[in-house]
């Protein structure tokens, strides 16, 4: 078995569903579900509050399925911005997914184009982070990869969409001062902390935070792209410096 591809028929669907890695992928995502749901709820409320009708908001949540891009597009749509500006903003906010897609490639390249598109479409931020933590090596444990992927994706999708729909329906009842968006920030914080390890990762996180704040005035959320670029550079510099230091140290000790 060369790994289970996109579950196209009932037998494959059942095999994926029953695979222990599917459960594990789902379980890892369940611990994040509260944060995902809080953010979905906020996005659902925002869609209606910025003037979308309930059917349009439902269309948006099920079709677009990208919270940060939706939140960036909504005020522009409400302000009557030209369509291309809305699209440009969403594309900029989604640029991080372009970077992630390069990292997905070695895992998905063996599938045909249509399946690769489906796999790409459903891969949210947290799916990416959790999957790469479980399978750092694309060649390793290939049959486990797809069930784990779908377990995480299914959980993420259900948590996000059910909360988003709830937000759309209850938009005018939920008081904004509950600050539910903060729960979403905390979920991201937890995931971020789980990625902190070697010194270079701490430096990268610090540089990204500072750059994102410093470049906040840039339009179209480009500060996120600036922050990623700065952090990647900082991480590489740290890695190189640490390696050089270790080499020098070793030579020094050996002499």
């Amino acid at each position: 078995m060369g790994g289970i591809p996109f579950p196209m028929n009932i037998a494959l669907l059942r095999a994926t569903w029953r695979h222990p890695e599917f459960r594990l992928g789902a379980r890892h995502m369940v611990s994040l579900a509260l944060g995902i749901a809080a953010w979905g709820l906020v996005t659902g409320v925002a869609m209606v509050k910025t003037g979308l009708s309930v059917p349009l908001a439902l269309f948006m949540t099920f079709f677009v399925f990208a919270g940060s891009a939706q939140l960036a597009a909504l005020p522009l749509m409400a302000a009557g911005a030209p369509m291309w500006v809305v699209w440009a903003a969403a594309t900029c906010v989604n640029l991080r997914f372009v970077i992630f897609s390069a990292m997905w490639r070695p895992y998905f390249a063996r599938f045909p184009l249509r399946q690769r598109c489906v796999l790409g479409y459903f891969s949210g931020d947290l799916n990416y982070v959790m999957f790469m933590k479980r399978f750092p090596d694309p060649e390793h444990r290939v049959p486990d990869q797809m069930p784990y992927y779908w377990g995480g994706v299914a959980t993420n999708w259900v948590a996000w969409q059910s909360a988003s729909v709830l937000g759309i329906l209850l938009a005018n009842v939920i008081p904004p001062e509950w600050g539910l968006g903060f729960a979403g920030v905390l979920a991201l914080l937890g995931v971020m902390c789980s990625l902190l390890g070697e010194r270079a990762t701490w430096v990268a996180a610090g540089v990204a935070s500072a750059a994102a704040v410093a470049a906040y005035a840039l339009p179209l959320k480009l500060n996120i792209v600036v922050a990623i670029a700065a952090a990647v550079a900082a991480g590489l510099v740290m890695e190189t410096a640490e390696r050089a230091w270790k080499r020098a140290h070793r030579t020094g000790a050996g002499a």
Partner: protein
Amino acid sequence: MSTWEAILTIAGLGLITLLTRSFFLLPERELHMPGLIKRGLKYAPLAALAAVIAPEVLMTHGELIVTWRDARIFGLVAATAYYFWRRDILGTILTGMAIYLPLRLVLGW
């Protein structure tokens, strides 16, 4: 924006989700990526998360906050401490909210 314009805009946004998330999955031929880029991109997800979190916690209306009386700061510190104590994300969210909500709702921070 008319309803049809809104529908078209949203349809375009859906297409953008598809295209950005599968961007490097689209070509059939093998892509060669230099080792330096591969190593560097390891930091991208971490950076993206930090870049989303920092302005959400440290800024109000596009300005860096100048007061320590901000419920978000205390929520963030408590949540981070809990994470490194227990390494559990659900508990991290609950701890952060348990500190954040009373400060916000009762003290108005």
